């Protein structure tokens, strides 16, 4: 360590819509370090990395990597010089197999045909070497997010990257997967790879990073050695104030059950049972956290309840009425709303404007109309209020939603679903990719809803979130409700983790019995 391998100096970037995403930003990274890049949503982290990777042009500044100038180099040249990037929103071809994705563009050929056997072997070997095991023959659409991440990493490593850019890699991972990823990153570091690591979770940064550069509103506000700083200092730099992700929750005052699942089962299109006779009850004034290792039925549970998964069996009772098989319109009219797991498929229309994305569930509402016609004035006012209340960083309601930063896209979705004022909120990873300040805000909102007597089903991969927010916890394992804790405060993270892995108790885990 010690030798500077990357230097980005005084980078300024203005997007075609006039957003100044980076202003005189500098970044210096040493060889063999894990360097964190932090900042609020829209601070310009992804932009800076896209510039480095050669997929966004910049207006001013210079970049040197490993002693060589990378001035306005194209992505192909950047990759060649040894830089690889795993994007915030994955870039994989879903219909192709894992090994096909990994070799895309570098296919080993035998005459005019791709040498598949060699490609598969290479994928395996690489996976062994970096402890990134994935089945090369699986189709990307069938594998979990955690595995997709590994595929992305392998893709980058196969191209000989010595500097890896990871844009919010942990946002989509479970704690176990995050641990695993950290192990792999440390292994890479030991092999003298350099890593730029973007995350909103200060804990993670404190844990594995050597230094941290903080951006705010497109500018540098600091570069610190992690060993010589504390979480408070980082959050103060990022947000300009102290953010403590701790909640003061009032004791719960529960009312009648609002949502109840009875024997809820689901079989996916491959014939696999993803939900097996799940029962639970959610009462007014209660936050029920759903925990589990990714792919154990939590997402399916949320989608089945909201009518997004076809063919669910059993009963889902809302205020005593079975909603299974009802249209989503009816379900919403009964007072449910839904924050989907993946903002880009179910949450947002990237080609639409911000205001268009804020009203799809209420387009028929008389509050947005005058004489039966949509009133652009009323809509603009409504959208403006939500933008303000949820602090969505954009150039106004007319901006294209696809051009927002990842966290601000998420805020659009959350703003819409919370402002629908539901009785039952199904929140599937509500704070994914959101900065600490906004995270605090959304938590507060959810708790406010609870105190107002609403019911919240919180699905989250973030154990900390589950433990902080939930009144009660349901653990999913292999499609079953593996455990239920009436009082979340009495559960430890360790116990939860064991239950997620399918162990019945601590003693059973010690003996390896499930």
């Amino acid at each position, binding site marked *: 360590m010690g030798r500077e391998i990357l230097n980005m100096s005084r980078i300024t970037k*203005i997007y*075609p*819509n*006039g*957003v*100044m995403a980076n*202003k005189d930003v500098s970044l210096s990274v040493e060889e063999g370090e894990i360097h964190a890049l932090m900042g609020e949503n829209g601070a310009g982290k992804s932009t800076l990395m896209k510039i480095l990777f050669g997929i966004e042009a910049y*207006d001013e500044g210079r970049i040197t990597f490993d002693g060589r100038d990378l001035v306005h180099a194209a992505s192909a040249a950047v990759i060649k010089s040894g830089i690889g990037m795993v994007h915030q929103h994955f870039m994989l071809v879903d219909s192709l197999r894992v090994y096909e994705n990994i070799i895309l563009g570098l296919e080993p050929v035998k005459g005019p045909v791709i040498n598949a056997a060699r490609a598969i072997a290479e994928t395996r070997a690489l996976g062994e070497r970096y402890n990134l095991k994935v089945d090369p023959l699986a189709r990307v659409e069938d594998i979990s997010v955690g595995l997709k991440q590994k595929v992305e990493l392998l893709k980058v490593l196969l191209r000989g990257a010595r500097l890896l850019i990871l844009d919010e890699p942990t946002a989509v991972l479970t704690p176990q997967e995050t641990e695993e990823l950290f192990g792999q990153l440390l292994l890479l570091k030991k092999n003298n790879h350099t890593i730029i690591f973007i995350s909103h979770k200060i804990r993670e940064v404190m844990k594995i990073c050597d230094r941290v550069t903080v951006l705010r509103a497109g500018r540098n506000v600091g570069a610190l050695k992690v060993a010589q700083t504390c979480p408070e200092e980082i959050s103060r730099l990022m947000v300009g104030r102290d953010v403590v992700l701790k909640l003061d929750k009032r004791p719960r005052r529960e009312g009648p059950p609002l949502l109840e699942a009875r024997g809820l089962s689901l079989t996916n299109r491959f014939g696999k049972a993803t939900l097996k006779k799940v029962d639970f009850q959610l009462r007014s004034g209660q936050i029920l956290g759903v925990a589990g290792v990714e792919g154990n039925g939590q997402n399916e549970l949320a989608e089945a309840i*909201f009518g*997004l998964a076809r063919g669910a069996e059993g009963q889902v009772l809302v205020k005593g009425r079975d909603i299974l098989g009802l*249209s*989503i*319109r009816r*379900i*919403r*009219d009964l007072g449910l709303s*839904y924050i*989907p797991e993946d903002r880009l*498929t*179910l*949450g*947002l*229309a*990237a*080609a*639409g404007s911000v205001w*268009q*994305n804020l*009203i*799809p*569930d209420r*387009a*028929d509402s008389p509050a*947005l*109309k005058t004489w*039966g*016609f*949509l009133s*652009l004035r009323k809509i603009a006012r409504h959208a403006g209020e939500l933008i303000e209340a949820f602090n969505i960083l954009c150039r106004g309601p*007319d901006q294209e939603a696809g051009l927002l930063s990842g966290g601000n896209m998420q805020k659009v979705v959350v703003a819409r679903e919370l402002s629908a004022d539901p009785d039952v909120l199904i929140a599937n990873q509500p704070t994914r990719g959101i900065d600490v300040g906004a995270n605090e805000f959304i938590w507060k909102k959810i708790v406010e809803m609870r105190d107002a007597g609403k019911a919240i089903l919180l699905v989250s991969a973030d154990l900390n979130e589950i433990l902080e927010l939930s009144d009660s916890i349901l653990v999913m394992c292999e499609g079953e409700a593996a455990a239920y804790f009436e009082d979340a405060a009495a559960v430890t993270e360790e116990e939860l983790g064991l239950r997620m892995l399918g162990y019945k108790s601590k003693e059973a885990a010690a003996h390896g019995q499930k």
Partner: protein
Amino acid sequence: MDKNSRIRFEMLKTALAVTLALGLVFVIILLVSREPQAAIRSFLGGPLSSLRRFGNVIEAMTPLMFTGLSVTMLYRAGLFNLSMEGGFFIACVAATASAVTLNLPAGLNLLVALAAGALAGGVSSLIPGALKVKCHANELVTSLMLNYVLLYLGLYVIVNILHDPAMSSNYSYAFPSNMLFPRLIPGTRINAGVFVALGCAALVYVLLDRTSFGYKVTMIGHNSRLAEAAGINVGRTIILSQLIGGMLAGLGGAVEMFGMYKRFQYQGLPGYGWDGVLIAIVAQFKPQFVPLSAFFLAYLRIGADIMARETDVPSEIVAVIQAVVIVLISAEAILKGYQRRLVVRQARKEEALNG
């Protein structure tokens, strides 16, 4: 860039594309013609040289507006298909059938025939839309296949049922004369049809941009899965949008029949559906620009026709010219650099103001 400067920029871009296209057209004319000056003069000035010729432009513009609007509507929901081509044609047949077989009183007969045309057109687009929603059949394929069915079905009806034996070709019986749209300007065939088209443009604008139905159609076109999760009835909205889109093409066919002809006399698909796609692209899929875009294409066509008649430039060149203009207008890259400089300058100014 704010809204105003963006609109100004778009206009500048279109103007530049047209200028470039015309420049290229002149080069082509210079290459193929021995009397280039005369050719250019009749191409550009021809349509304005007499009332009758200008009338031709307005007449040609009417069906183009209808199919342009039809495409705008059909594509808003994200269903790229060509059902308006067959829909336009079969609507002409349906309107003819209604006109020559039903013996209705004046006024009512026209209304019924227009409705018959709109209905026939609507059904032609409804079918691919419904197949898409119910069976996930690709709408482009089904609409293309359906167009053949409609073409031969239509010709069958004309030849076997509506054919006027007094005529040598496959012409239908003549329409009752009290059904024809009144000609508005003596010396031209300009008729009330053009106002019907303009009215439709206004209606489509309101429907798409000012009603929740139009908003839903737009969102489905953007991301149908989001629309579904938000509680929009995606299937029904798509089907309705296709029905309305098809009805616009159908109404266009019927209006064309009673505005321009005395009897049905098409021998094949007239091609207005394809033109509609061009018009909609140039209008950037915004109904309010469709009339302008249709006028532009009609002007090009009539100008080129006149040039072909009066000089040695073959009329096929028209097709080349059309292609050049469309490509240039839809080209995103024109003025990119200029736009960038504009944006950067503005962003810096804002930056300076905000400190």
